[in-house]
C-alpha cells in the first residue's frame, strides 16, 4: 500500500474554495437554464474568491513560522499567503468588471475558468519544489488560454488565445527543461534542498546548474511578460476580453514575480551574483522596450499592455536588488499595481461597452466630462502608473528605487527615473484625450457616437472601479501597516 503524506487542509483552503466555486459554476453551465447561468456563475466565483481571500488572510495570521506541508511540496508561509490575498482580491474585482459584459454564450464557464485560474495561482505561489511549480504554472496557464479565447464574437479573441497558448506553451517548455537541468545538476527538486545541494557539492558556477537557472528565469519571464520575452503581450492583451486582460495584468504578473523571488532566493542564493545581474538587465530591457513602444500606441489596451511590460521592469528592480527591503518593496508594490491594472482595464471595458468598438485614444475624447466617476478614476490610475502622488504607485516606485540604492546600484535608480519620465508622456495622453479634447475638435467619424443615449448603469463595474481607487489611494496613506504586512511576509524568505 502507498503511504500517503499528511495533508494540511487549512493550507490548501484557498485553492479548495476556488476549485469548489469552479465546480459549481461548471455544473451551472450544464444544468441550469440559460437565463440564470450568468448570475449563478458570477455568484459562485464571488463566493469562491471571497472565501479564498478570507482563508488566505487566516493563513497569513496563523502562520508566524514557515511550515512545509504535504511532503515538503508546498510551503505554508506568509509570503505565499500575501500573494494569495492579492490574487483573490484581483479575482474578486475582475468578477465585478466582467459581470455587466455583453457576453452570454459560455458565461458560466467563464466564471468557472476564472475561479480555476485563481486556484492555480494560489497553488503556484506556495509551490516548494520543481514539480508543484510546473503543476501550478500549467494549471492557471491553461485556464487563461481558454479565458483569452472564450469570447467568440470578439474580434481577435481566438487569435489572442491561440497566440498565448503557443508562446505560453513554449515558455512552459523552457521552464520544464530548466527544471530538468537543475534536477540533473543537484539531484533535488525541493527548493531549499537544491540550495543545500549546491553548497554541499560546491556546484556554484556549474554549467548544467547555471543553464537550468537561466531557463527557469526565462520561463518565469514569459509569464511576467518581461522583455525580451514579452512579444505575446500586446496582441494577447489587446485581443482577450478586457476583464481577462485586467486579471492577467494584475494576477499573472503578481504570481510570476512573487515566484521568481521565492525560487531565486530559496533555491539559488549562492548564485545571486549571476541572477541579480541577469534580472537587472531584464529589468532595463523591459523598461526601455515597454516605455518606448507604449509611446507609439493609439489603442488604449495595447498601450496598457506595454505599460505592464514596463511595470514588470519596475518590479524586477527590487527582486534584482536581492535584499529584504527589495522583497518588501515588491510585495508592497504589487498591491497598488494590481488595483491600478484592474481599475484601468475596467474603465476601458466600460468605454468599450458604450461604444461597442475597441477603445483608442481618439474615442476616449470627452469621456472625462461624460462619466465623471470613471474619468476621475482613470486619471488617478494614470497618475498611479506614472508614480505620482497621491497614489500607492508613488510609494511603490520609491521603495523599489530605495531597494536598488541599498544594493549599491545607483545607476539602476537613474534608469528607473528616466523610464518614469518617458512613461509620463503616454499616461498623460490618456488624460489629455479624456478631458482636454472635446469630441468635436477631433471630428470623429461614425465610430464615436454612443448609440441610443446613455448606456445602462453598470453598478458592479463601478463598484470595482471605486474599490480599486480606494486601494490605490489608501495604499498611499496607509503605507505603514501595508509595509509591516509585507515585511512579515518577506521574513518567510531566507534573507
Amino acid at each position, binding site marked *: 500500500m502507498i503511504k500517503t503524506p499528511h495533508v494540511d487542509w487549512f493550507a490548501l483552503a484557498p485553492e479548495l474554495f476556488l476549485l469548489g466555486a469552479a465546480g459549481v459554476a461548471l455544473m451551472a453551465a450544464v444544468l441550469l437554464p440559460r437565463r440564470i447561468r450568468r448570475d449563478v456563475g458570477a455568484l459562485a466565483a464571488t463566493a469562491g474568491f471571497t472565501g479564498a481571500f478570507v482563508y488566505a488572510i487566516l493563513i497569513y495570521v496563523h502562520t508566524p513560522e514557515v511550515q512545509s506541508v504535504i511532503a515538503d511540496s508546498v510551503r505554508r508561509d506568509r509570503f505565499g499567503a500575501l500573494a494569495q490575498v492579492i490574487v483573490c482580491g484581483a479575482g474578486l474585482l475582475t468578477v465585478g468588471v466582467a459581470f455587466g459584459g455583453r457576453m452570454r454564450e459560455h458565461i458560466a464557464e467563464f466564471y468557472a475558468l476564472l475561479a480555476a485560474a485563481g486556484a492555480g495561482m494560489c497553488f503556484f505561489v506556495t509551490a516548494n519544489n520543481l514539480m508543484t511549480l510546473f503543476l501550478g504554472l500549467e494549471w492557471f496557464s491553461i485556464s487563461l488560454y481558454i479565458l483569452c479565447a472564450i469570447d467568440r464574437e470578439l474580434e481577435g479573441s481566438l487569435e489572442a488565445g491561440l497566440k498565448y497558448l503557443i508562446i505560453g506553451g513554449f515558455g512552459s517548455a523552457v521552464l520544464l527543461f530548466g527544471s530538468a537541468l537543475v534536477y540533473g545538476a543537484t539531484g533535488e527538486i525541493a527548493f531549499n534542498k537544491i540550495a543545500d545541494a549546491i553548497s554541499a557539492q560546491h556546484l556554484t558556477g556549474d554549467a548544467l546548474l547555471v543553464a537550468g537557472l537561466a531557463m527557469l528565469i526565462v520561463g518565469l519571464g514569459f509569464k511576467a511578460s518581461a522583455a525580451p520575452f514579452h512579444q505575446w503581450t500586446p496582441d494577447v492583451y489587446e485581443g482577450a476580453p478586457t476583464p481577462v486582460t485586467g486579471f492577467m495584468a494584475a494576477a499573472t504578473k503578481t504570481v510570476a514575480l512573487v515566484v521568481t523571488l521565492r525560487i531565486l532566493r530559496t533555491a539559488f542564493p549562492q548564485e545571486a551574483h549571476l541572477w541579480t545581474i541577469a534580472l537587472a538587465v531584464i529589468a532595463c530591457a523591459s523598461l526601455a522596450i515597454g516605455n518606448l513602444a507604449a509611446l507609439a500606441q493609439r489603442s488604449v489596451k495595447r498601450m496598457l499592455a506595454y505599460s505592464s511590460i514596463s511595470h514588470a521592469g519596475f518590479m524586477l528592480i527590487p527582486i534584482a536588488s536581492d535584499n529584504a527591503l527589495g522583497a518588501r518593496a515588491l510585495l508592497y508594490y504589487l498591491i497598488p499595481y494590481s488595483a491600478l491594472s484592474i481599475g484601468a482595464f475596467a474603465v476601458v471595458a466600460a468605454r468599450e461597452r458604450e461604444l461597442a468598438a475597441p477603445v483608442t485614444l481618439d474615442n476616449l475624447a470627452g469621456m472625462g466630462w461624460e462619466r465623471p466617476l470613471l474619468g476621475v478614476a482613470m486619471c488617478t490610475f494614470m497618475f498611479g502608473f506614472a508614480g505620482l502622488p497621491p497614489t500607492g504607485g508613488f*510609494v511603490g516606485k520609491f521603495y523599489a528605487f530605495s531597494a536598488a540604492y541599498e544594493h549599491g546600484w545607483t545607476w539602476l535608480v537613474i534608469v528607473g527615473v528616466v523610464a518614469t519620465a518617458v512613461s509620463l508622456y503616454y499616461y*498623460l495622453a490618456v488624460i489629455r484625450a479624456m478631458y482636454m479634447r472635446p469630441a468635436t475638435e477631433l471630428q470623429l467619424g461614425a465610430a464615436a457616437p454612443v448609440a441610443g443615449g446613455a448606456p445602462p448603469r453598470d453598478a458592479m463595474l463601478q463598484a470595482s472601479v471605486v474599490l480599486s481607487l480606494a486601494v490605490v489611494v489608501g495604499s498611499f496613506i496607509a503605507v505603514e501597516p501595508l509595509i509591516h504586512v509585507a515585511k512579515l511576509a518577506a521574513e518567510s524568505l531566507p534573507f
Partner: protein
Amino acid sequence: MGWLTTSLILLPLGAALLVWLFPWDPFTAGAIALLAAFGEVGLWIECLFRFNFDKGGLQLDQRTSWFSDLHVSYHVGMYGFSLWLVGLTVVVQAAAIIYAFWAGRTGARAYFGLMLLLTAAIVGVFTAQDLLLFYVFWEAMLIPLYVLIGVWGGPGRLGATIKFFIYTMAGSLLMLASIIVLGLSQGTFDLTATYQSSSDWIFLGFVAAFAVKAPLFPLHGWLPDAYRESPAEVSAVLSGLVSKAAIYGFIRIAITKFPEPTKDFRTVILVLAAIGLIYGSLLAFRAPDIRGVIAYSSLAQLGLITFGVFAVNDLGLNGAVLQMVNHGLISAALFLLAGGIERRATTGDFSRLGGFARGRPLLATVLMTTGIIGLAVPGSSAFAGEFEILAGVFSVDWGYAVVGAVAIVLAAMYMLRLISAVLHQSPGPAVSPQALDLRPAELSAVVPLVACLLALSVWPAAITQRSFTNDQGSKDVSTQFEAAK
C-alpha cells in the same frame, strides 16, 4: 500648535473634496471655494500671532511617522521665511479664486476643486520638513496645474501643458533620485536633522528640479507658452507662487544641506542668473503682448532673487525673501489685470490696445500703482528688496551688482512700456469705448494685493527682520548659512 500648520493644508483639501463630491451648482461651488480661501487667510493670521519671531527656528510643527522602516514622516512646520511665503500663498490664492469666481469658469466644481487642491499643495511645499513629503507636495502641485492649464487654457494649451509637464517632471524626477540617495545615505528623510552632504551629484539633482521650476536661464523654454495659454488667475499662481516654491527649495534644501557644492557651483548659478536677468528684461521689453512682458519679467525677477539667495549672506537672503513676496504680489496682480484687459479687448496685443486710461480711472490707478512698484521706484517695497539683494551680492563680486543695477533700469523700461501701451496713447482698434472700468469683483481681487504691496513699502522690515531670526539651536537655517560661507 502644529495643528495650525496641518489645518492650513487640510482645510483646502477638505473643501476640494466637498466641492467634488456633491452636486453643487456653480455659484455654490465657487462660494465654498471662496470661503475656504478666506478661512486660509484667517488661519494664516492666527499663525502670524502665534509665531514667536524673537525665538526663531522651526515653529508650529507637527510630526507623525508615515513609514518608519525608511524613517519617513509627516513633518510640517514653519520658519520665519516660510511663514511669509505661506502668507503670500493664501493671499494670492484668495485673489485668484475671487477672480475665477467672477470670471465664471465652466465646469465650476472641477475648477474650484483643483484650485483648492493647488492651494493645499503649495502650502504643503512651503511647510514640509521631510524630504519625501516635500517631494509629494511638489508633485501634487503639478497635477492641478496640468489640468487647469490643459482644460481651461487658451488655444495652444495642449502644447503648453506637454512642454510644462515634461520639463518640470524631468527636473523633479532627478530630484527624486537625489532624495532617495540623500535620505537613505543619511538614514533619515527629516529636513530638520542636522546633516550636510558634500556630494555634487545629489546637489545637482535638486538644483535641476528647482532651476526648471523657477525657471533659471536656460531652462525657461516652457515659460512663455505656459504663462500665455493659462487662464489669467492660473498664470498669476504660476508666476506668483509656483516659481517661489523653487526658490524656497534653493534656500531650504540646496544651500542648507549642501554648503560645499553651493560654494563650488555658486559662480555658475550666479552667472546663469545674471544672463537670465538681462535676457529676460530685454525679451520683456520686446514682447508684443501684456502676458509676454509679465512672463519674461518673471524670468528676470527670478534671476534677481537667485542673486540674493546665492549671495549666501544675511543681506542677500533677507532681500530675496522680501523680493519673493513682492514679486509674487506684483506678478499676480499684473496677471489678473491682464486677464481683465483681455476680457475687455479680447486680446493682449499692444498693437491693438491703448488709451485704456480715458474714462477708466480705477483700472488706470491700479495698473499704474502696481507697475510703478514693479519697476522698483525708490520708496517701494520692491526697491527695498532689490536694494538689499544688490547690497548682498555686491559683497560677493561687484560685477553682479552692476548687472543687477542695469537690469533695474531695464525693468523701468519694460514696465513703463507696458503701462503706456495699455493705458495711454490713442485708443487701439480692439478697445471699444463701451469697455467698462474695473468691476467691484475685480477690484476686490486686485486691490488687496496692491494694499499688501503698499503696506510692505511702508514697512519692509516686517519681512526682512523676521525671516531668519537668530536661533541658538544648531538646526536653525540661518546658522547653517554661516557655516556655508
